[in-house]
């Protein structure tokens, strides 16, 4: 049996189904992300696990113990909130020590643990500051330290990085992963940012309209999105009409009434000279992304997005005619969306 298990978890608000029959099994030490657009039920799911939201039906099992209806204070889980949720009237050290004081641990023990965990999140020199004197990133580290210090069986992160600016967000992503692997704690993170989910999770759970639509390792999720929605939400995707050929391989069809939708990632398309390749097109616009060039190319199959590495050579200009080519085995067949987003 998995360490943290959700069995047919449901949450209804009146006539609205916020979370529908969610099943999930998380192994000990695993880092799992709940990914989805806002309103998909991911935060509600996390809040049910934390105990802040009542469960309508289904069960939550932690290490074999049924905690479905346990009080939040008796679950002993570590929770990190989007707003940091620090106690404004307490110093960093007191914020972190709060959970240990609730557990009535001896003061010397508390001091030792607080020092230790503040070193882990690299805030040892800010112990006597108040939250208002810290930057956003530092506050998030305090929140993390406060959740970790009670040595919870599971760490729950609710959009932990969405209040940080882009540079800091990337830095904190890796920081969270570093701390998580150092402590070896089972972690469930809620996020709407696919890059965040892909970069630091062991597995990603995609949710849409209250349902889990795909659970996979980040690489597999990106390379084999199951539905149209997922291929679009996780990374960028070119959607092409297609059919299966005699060998059962997907092939792009030029007719509009093709029975399948195929997905092709922008970086999987090669740009060749005009006339070569499988498809002809003209570069409509060009965007510079630093490490990459992004081209929007008009083709008989519609506008396609192509990403090329910035390898130092001159980029193609707008208005240039090009040939497009790809490896047919990189085409993915998408299932129709079973839920509308």
């Amino acid at each position: 049996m998995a360490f943290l298990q959700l069995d047919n978890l449901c949450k209804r608000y009146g006539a609205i189904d916020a979370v529908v029959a969610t099943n999930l099994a998380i192994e000990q030490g695993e880092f799992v992300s709940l990914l989805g657009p806002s309103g998909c039920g991911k935060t509600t799911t996390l809040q049910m696990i934390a105990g802040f939201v009542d469960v309508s039906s289904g069960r939550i099992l932690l290490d074999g113990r049924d905690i479905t209806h346990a009080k939040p204070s008796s679950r002993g889980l570590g929770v990190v909130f989007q707003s940091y949720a620090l106690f404004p009237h307490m110093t960093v050290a007191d914020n972190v020590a709060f959970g240990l004081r609730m557990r009535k641990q001896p003061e010397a023990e508390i001091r030792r643990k607080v020092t230790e965990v503040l070193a882990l999140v690299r805030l040892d020199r800010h112990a006597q500051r108040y939250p208002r004197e810290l930057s956003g990133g530092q506050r998030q580290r305090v929140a993390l330290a406060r959740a970790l210090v009670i040595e919870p069986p599971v760490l729950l992160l609710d959009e932990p990085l969405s209040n940080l600016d882009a540079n800091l967000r990337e830095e904190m992503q890796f920081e969270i992963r570093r701390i998580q692997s150092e402590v070896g704690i089972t972690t469930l993170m809620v996020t709407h940012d696919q890059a965040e989910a892909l970069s630091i999770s062991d597995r990603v759970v995609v949710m849409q309209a209250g349902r889990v639509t795909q659970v996979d390792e980040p690489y597999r999720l990106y390379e084999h999105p199951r539905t149209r929605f997922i291929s679009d939400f996780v990374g960028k995707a070119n959607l092409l009409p297609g059919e299966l050929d005699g060998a059962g391989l997907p092939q792009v069809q030029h007719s509009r009434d093709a029975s399948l939708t195929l997905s092709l990632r922008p970086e999987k398309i090669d740009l060749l000279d005009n006339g070569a390749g499988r498809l002809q097109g003209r570069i409509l616009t060009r965007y510079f992304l630093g490490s990459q060039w992004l081209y929007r190319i008009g083709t008989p199959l519609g506008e396609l997005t192509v990403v090329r590495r910035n390898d130092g050579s001159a980029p193609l200009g707008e208005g240039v005619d090009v040939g497009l080519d790809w490896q047919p085995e990189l085409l993915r067949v998408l299932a129709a969306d079973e839920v509308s987003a």
Partner: protein
Amino acid sequence: MSKNGPLALTFHSLVVVFMLAPLVVVCLVAFTPENTLSLPTAGFSLRWFEAVFERADFLEAFKNSLQLAFLAASLATLIAVPAGLAITRLQFPGRDFLNVLFLSPIIIPHLVLGVALLRLFALLGVNGSFTWLVLAHTVVITPYVLRLVIAAAIGVDRSAEQAAESLGASRFTLFRKITLPMILPGIAGGWLLAFINSFDEVTLSIFVTSPATQTLPVKMYVYATESIDPMMAAVSALVIALTAVTMILLDRVYGLDRVLVGKH
């Protein structure tokens, strides 16, 4: 800090002058050596201040007022804090009714309340009782505390409370260690506002005080209806001075912004 245009500046100056000018006049008149409220005055004298301190009944009334305001404001706070939290946090039938009920003393004229309470106290046989005077004041000043408590409670970050719960805090510990400290500026501001309102109250108090429980404003009102002399100005000046000193001390110790605006 944004700069004000000349029009806004003029308007603000006028408001300040309009509010402060009468107080300045009262304070100046208090130092007159003459027997009437005259301004400009012929000289400078402290005779009317001496007169105040020779009047034991005024000192007694002042003590009554302080006691009354302190007790009523504290009692109002004890009622308003749980009421404010219940109104902002819980969904229960009659919640809106309760909210309006708590506000109604502000809407009902104090004159009407005074007459009603006088009649009620007569029926109960408690006319002139200090305890019942405290209760009457509590009723009329609770709305002020309640408003500020509600404002503070709405501003509290609920996830901080959830964080405390997840860290193992019981309901009571949560309130004592997290919620209460976070709404404390609102509570302190509400208490202060209630204290000032109680200390200031005349209309209702006229009906429900007896000579033994007479408050300073009632005493002044009664005195002023009989004779107008500069002693009233002296009493007023003293009250103004006391209020100003209290405010300055509070600002130095705690910060008025924190008490009245709830800034951290």
